[in-house]
């Protein structure tokens, strides 16, 4: 007998998406219910404590991430994140706390000050986990009304969906999952060199010059593979590769003209739901040429 999964999640939005990538948020809110996934907003959630915050203070990272996990526990729901930084932060802390009763005691002493207790009752998933593992590739495929046939894309799952192995259980698992989902829409995921390389985003605001140089390496490899566009799931990868192309143009006088879309936008178009004008314009590198009548 096939088990029917209860696809209801505490929806952890993070900071970047609701501030700067509304088109990502809107597509998720429109597409996921169509696939039977119910998302419940997490009231009172704080920043996940990404790498910048972890760089300043370890104990604060653990406590801030644990506070978010406590909120999900109170809701009785597993967490679904969109941003890779949020995902890695919450997943790492959840994993560490489940493994170490000692660390759990320490964090609960801090959390007792705000009337919370981490119990280790929920799991943390990413949008790709939910689409691949819960909804399933076959159901995604059957939801496609207008296949994205013939489009060659390079996928960018992003580092923190896939590394390190000991947190994500298998080496680069997220790559295969995202590729399978992209293929289900009808588009072709083309292999390219340096696919597992970072987008450069984590050095943005720390060392902008280096961040741009890393993105540039990635874009060169994508261009060499003759892809027509890039498909991401992480808002930092999106920002770095989309807006980043304008910055690279300014600093290196090089133009790549590679449209970048979030996977959920690709899926939405495949399901026959058009993007609105403002969503199309949310992409700095125009996507009109490769998606034409779908917009």
């Amino acid at each position, binding site marked *: 007998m096939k088990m029917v999964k209860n696809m209801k999640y505490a929806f952890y939005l993070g*900071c970047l998406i609701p501030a700067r990538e509304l088109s990502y948020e809107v597509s998720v809110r429109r597409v996921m219910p169509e696939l039977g996934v119910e998302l419940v907003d997490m009231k*009172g959630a704080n920043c996940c404590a990404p790498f910048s915050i972890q760089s300043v203070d370890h104990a604060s990272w653990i406590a801030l991430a644990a506070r978010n996990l406590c909120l999900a526990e109170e809701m009785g729901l597993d967490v679904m994140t969109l941003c890779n930084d949020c995902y890695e932060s919450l997943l790492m802390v959840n994993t560490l706390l489940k493994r170490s009763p000692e660390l759990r005691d320490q964090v609960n002493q801090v959390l007792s000050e705000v009337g919370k207790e981490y119990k280790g009752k929920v799991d943390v998933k990413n949008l790709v986990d939910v689409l691949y593992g819960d909804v399933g590739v076959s159901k995604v495929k059957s939801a496609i009304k207008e296949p994205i046939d013939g489009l060659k894309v390079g996928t960018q799952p992003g580092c923190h969906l896939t*590394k390190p192995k000991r947190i994500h259980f298998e080496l680069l698992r997220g790559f295969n999952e995202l590729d399978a989902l992209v293929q289900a829409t009808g588009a072709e995921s083309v292999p390219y060199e340096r696919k597992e390389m970072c987008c450069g985003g984590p050095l943005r605001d720390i060392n902008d010059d*280096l961040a741009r140089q890393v993105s540039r390496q990635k874009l060169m490899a994508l261009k060499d593979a003759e892809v027509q566009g890039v498909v991401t799931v992480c808002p930092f990868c999106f920002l770095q590769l989309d807006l980043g192309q304008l910055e690279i143009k300014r600093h290196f006088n090089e133009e790549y003209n590679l449209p970048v879309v979030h996977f959920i936008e690709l899926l939405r178009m495949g399901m026959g739901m058009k993007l609105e004008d403002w969503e199309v314009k949310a992409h700095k590198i125009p996507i009109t040429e490769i998606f034409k009548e779908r917009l």
Partner: protein
Amino acid sequence: MSELDLGFMGEVANTPRGRGILLCIQCGRCSSGCPVARLTGEHNPRRLMEMIILGFKKEVIPTQLPWYCLSCFTCLDRCPQGGDVGEVTFAIRNLAARQGNIPAGVAAQAKSLYETTRVINPIRSALEKRESLGLGKITMDGLEEVQKILKRTGMEKIIQSK
């Protein structure tokens, strides 16, 4: 020749993310896979580990060296020892932060977190767009709790000192 701090490795190893330093055998697989090391000679993860092992604390903590890493974690999957250079980086960044060595962009995010619960906040036009689309409000409901937590962990002091 500068003065070496022979306790440096132990200090790093005794932090929650610094233990991997004890496992490093200086093989260099971290450097060979590092996307930043490919672009600049300033960053070399193997050498960074070596400097910690040998006690070059003054040459590491107050400098730019802790702040080149992308945290892409390529080195974590490549290290044959489980030595975790990418994790050790957080250990030395925490030590650097306590000495006031925090890049402006990171300090700004930490301050924003303390003041608003979020590292990035929507500008007015994004807030208006959210409202017109009927998206949920961006609240600061958790602010009091976040500030209590950061006071308790001591991070508030680091933020205020910047």
